[in-house]
């Protein structure tokens, strides 16, 4: 295995070469070809060697660190050059400021290029730009896609544009008219998404330019305030601050919110259309479809919810019954509290007829105690749970 010590040794050699190399290139400008950074290349080689022996979680983790390391290396490279150039000057204010300005202008030029080399260089410098929401949305939705791999990423706007106009102008004809129209609709949706995606990338491009400008301005302001950058890490932290500030100045606006919404909606429309198409094919093959499974899940959910509601009602009723029984057992039965209905047969004094009376003894006794007149008592008793059945 290629060990860490081996790498450090090789790195030392590379660094030496880098330093010597740099001494002979005082006027070097930023160029798209960044392969002259030996540290980054060696680090990458080392990483490929050791990452296989790390646990999966740790490997991913160190991979992230190394990604940041690459930015660190690139910043180191950029500023080493700048300092080399500045060392040739007398460090008078206008001299170094002009060089600094030129350095940042070169970076902006590079940022505006869309070719692959410029993309790679910018990735090394900006790092997190590759992880911006745009990429996140695509990656995540691709993960959730029924299509294998990042199929969205493989469709490029430039090449697609050439064929979309032709396709979209063709009317659907014949027996397969409907499916032709579905394909055309898919292309139209994809085209729409790509247009918005381009708009979004342009907006982020402005944020990137803003970060470069902010970095230059901050360095110039530091000079005025007699502040110092003492290490590469200071430069890196300043670079992060500038990127965050520029990013924040854009994303906290209604314009960003509106564009982000349109972008997500356009991507969802593409995905939903694709899913519906696949569903149709699956249906034709008599394979369960997304729509069908959705219906099943909804029915199952409704049944389960109903079952839970019923169960809860039963539990509530059981509790009520249990409470009532508990109250019955806990209560001390005194004569005045006895509520048990009593069935008895009484004979009317006036008519001599027998009556069956269901009455509460306690209440009857109470009434008998408090009331002297029999007629009045009877009236009260009728109002108080006394049922009189004429025989």
């Amino acid at each position: 295995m290629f060990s860490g010590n081996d790498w450090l040794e090789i790195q030392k050699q590379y660094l030496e070469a880098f330093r010597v190399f740099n001494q002979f290139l005082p006027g070097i400008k930023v160029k798209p070809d960044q392969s002259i950074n030996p540290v980054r290349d060696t680090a990458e080689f080392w990483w490929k060697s050791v990452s296989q022996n790390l646990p999966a979680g740790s490997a991913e983790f160190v991979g992230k660190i190394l990604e940041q390391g690459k930015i660190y290396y690139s910043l180191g490279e950029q500023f080493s050059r700048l300092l080399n150039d500045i060392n040739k000057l007398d460090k008078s204010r206008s001299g170094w400021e002009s060089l600094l300005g030129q350095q940042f202008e070169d970076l902006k030029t590079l940022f505006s290029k869309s070719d692959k080399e410029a993309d790679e260089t910018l990735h090394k410098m900006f790092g997190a730009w590759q992880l911006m929401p745009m990429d996140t949305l695509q990656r995540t939705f691709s993960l959730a896609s029924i299509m294998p791999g990042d199929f969205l990423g493989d469709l490029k706007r430039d090449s697609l544009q050439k064929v979309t106009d032709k396709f979209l102008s063709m009317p659907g004809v014949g027996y397969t008219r409907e499916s032709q129209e579905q394909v055309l609709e898919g292309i139209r949706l994809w085209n729409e998404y790509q247009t918005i995606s381009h708009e979004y990338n342009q907006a982020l491009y402005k944020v990137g330019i803003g970060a470069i400008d902010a970095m230059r301005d901050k360095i110039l302001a530091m000079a005025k305030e007699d502040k110092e950058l003492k290490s590469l890490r200071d430069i890196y932290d300043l670079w992060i601050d500038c990127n965050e500030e520029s990013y924040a100045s854009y994303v906290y606006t209604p314009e960003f919110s509106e564009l982000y919404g349109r972008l997500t909606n356009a991507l969802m429309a593409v995905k939903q259309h694709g899913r519906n198409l696949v569903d149709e094919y699956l249906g034709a093959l008599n394979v369960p479809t997304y729509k069908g499974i959705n219906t099943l899940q909804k029915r199952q959910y409704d049944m389960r919810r109903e079952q839970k509601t019923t169960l809860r009602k039963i539990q509530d009723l059981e509790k009520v019954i249990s409470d009532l029984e508990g109250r019955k057992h806990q209560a001390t039965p005194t004569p005045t509290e006895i509520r048990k209905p009593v069935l008895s047969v009484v004979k009317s004094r006036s008519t001599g007829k027998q009556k069956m009376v269901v009455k509460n003894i306690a209440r009857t006794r109470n009434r008998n105690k408090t009331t002297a007149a029999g007629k009045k008592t009877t009236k009260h008793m009728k109002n108080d749970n006394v049922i009189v059945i004429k025989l």
Partner: protein
Amino acid sequence: MFPFQMRPDEIIREIGEFNARLVQGVHTLTEIGDVDVGFSRKHLVYQEDKMMLYHFEPRAEKINPVPLLIVYALVNRPYMADLQDGRSMIQGLLDVGLDIYLVDWGYPDSADHFLTMDDYINGYIDRCVDVICDKHKLKQINLLGICQGGTFCLCYAALHPQKIKNLITTVTPVDFHTKNDLLSLMVRNIDVDLLVDTLGNIPGELLNWTYLTLKPFRLMGQKYMDLVNMLDDKEQARNFMRMEKWIFDSPDQVGETFREFVKQFYQGNGLVKGTVVIGGKKVDLLKITMPVLNIYAAIDHLVPPDSSKALRGCVGTDDYSEVEFPGGHIGIYVSSKAQKMIPSAVRDWLAKRT
């Protein structure tokens, strides 16, 4: 003054040092093994579908007689409140004599995607409250919500005020339209119906990345550079990995609940407007008449302090208190500062109201 006080060779030396630390860090990572999360001892006391209700073993002699139910958010996992020994809000609350229960929502899958906020609030939470009330023979318990869980607790307390003795919200969004709420801006113009109808459940990974893109350069970059400086210390590396595990341990979001939450809360700002409807019933925060303690973080980038502080003018209670924690959204649970501040504040506040 010329601001660059360094020479090119010093830059190269710094890179060399960085690389050496990186190599050392890789050795450290190979040696620390798996990281464990969730420190305090607990028992499962109730389970329904994927939801689990845990009861923590007490750690103090004198226990507050009214149990405290902690409701976590649907986002990420609740072990953040009990990350490790010495970095655990739950451990702190147990140490100050509180009787703690915790709702764990589990990992929903596609079969759960029709669950609504009604199911979560009037279903799961309500049944958990009933289970605890039955167990302790009480009619009311104390409730503590974390982040989105706090919003759920507000809804629950408004719909079932008779069951809650005291309500505590922590880093809880209330006003979803404060000007510095980036999450709110990001979802404001999204067609949530289209999103949920297309995806079903919302992938946890999408949420992870959305949170990271709130501060992409710090959270996806600078943080790892800082780590290089501490990788030679195994314990520090383990702590970092533990937090990293939590950040990316993100369950999918149940589609229908996500739809309701985004539309009614994030887009409609219904909690402060009084337009939220759950299970056919309007959520009226004025019905929250029990004492309320609202804890928020001063530098919270996920739930801006203003969003939490909006609660003051919305609830119906006369007994409303606020605690400002001088930290961020996660620091309020895991930082050493929080361990000293939050549990004792909760204990003292509850003690006066029990």
